[in-house]
């Protein structure tokens, strides 16, 4: 018996749900950022599973592009986090509720 497609989809759904719960629960900006990365990875697992089971390379290409977007997001997001910390001396999202810097 081999692992079925639905197993991978279930694992991906579990990871995505854990990541989304983390985004909702966490108060720290960096922890929320890491939970978003977790959600991106869950979607990547779906892409690779479909690409493997349908024998199509397109899914893996889009995983590649998602990784690029995640790298860009990491660079810009961590820059924003550093700016928030400089202005507020805190990483708590509740204290950054005003858009004014």
């Amino acid at each position, binding site marked *: 018996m081999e692992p079925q497609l639905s197993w991978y989809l279930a694992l991906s759904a579990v990871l995505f749900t854990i990541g989304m719960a983390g985004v909702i629960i966490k108060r720290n900006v960096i922890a929320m950022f890491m939970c978003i990365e977790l959600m991106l990875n869950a979607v990547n697992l779906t892409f690779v599973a479909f690409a493997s089971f349908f024998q199509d390379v397109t899914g*893996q290409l889009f995983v590649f592009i998602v990784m*690029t977007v995640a790298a860009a997001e990491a660079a810009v997001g961590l*820059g924003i986090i550093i700016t928030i910390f400089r202005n507020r001396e805190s990483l708590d999202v509740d204290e950054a509720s005003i858009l004014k810097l």
Partner: protein
Amino acid sequence: MLVLLFILFGAMAIGCALGVVAQRNPLYSAISLIGVFVSLACLYVMLAAPFIAAVQVIVYAGAIMVLVVFVIMLLNVEEEERRRPRLRFLVPAAIALAGVLIAEVAFILVSVQQVPVAAGSSVSDVGLTQSIGAALFTKYLLPFEITSILLLMAIVGAMTLARRGGLIRSREQTTRG
């Protein structure tokens, strides 16, 4: 054998993901997240995608997490303090709704049709670096170029944000001077 490996790496991924959410120290969360990335890379190898697995380890577990850990160290983040739980009456409602959701997902998993083609059953070139590169530079050239523009924008944006003094203050300085 593959089933055992799937259970091993899947359990590792879920456990590390729970660790990401449960840890109060962001550094421990980051290390748990590296565990998730590595176990997902192992799953990609099982799915006959060695290139994606290598890129996962190099880009995610290498570059991005080094950046995150660097920022955690730079900002000297303290642990989250425990907060007084608000909305206490919502906890049983949330548990009940989660139970309903799990039941629905289990029903779908049982009733979904099995895909006839299994992973790794037939030898193909899907997932090899050569086929990915060929598709990337022929059929999907436009997304590739758009990605490069996105990276350029990210470079400019990150430099603008992280510049000494920040965006607002440097503008004030220029107007003053």
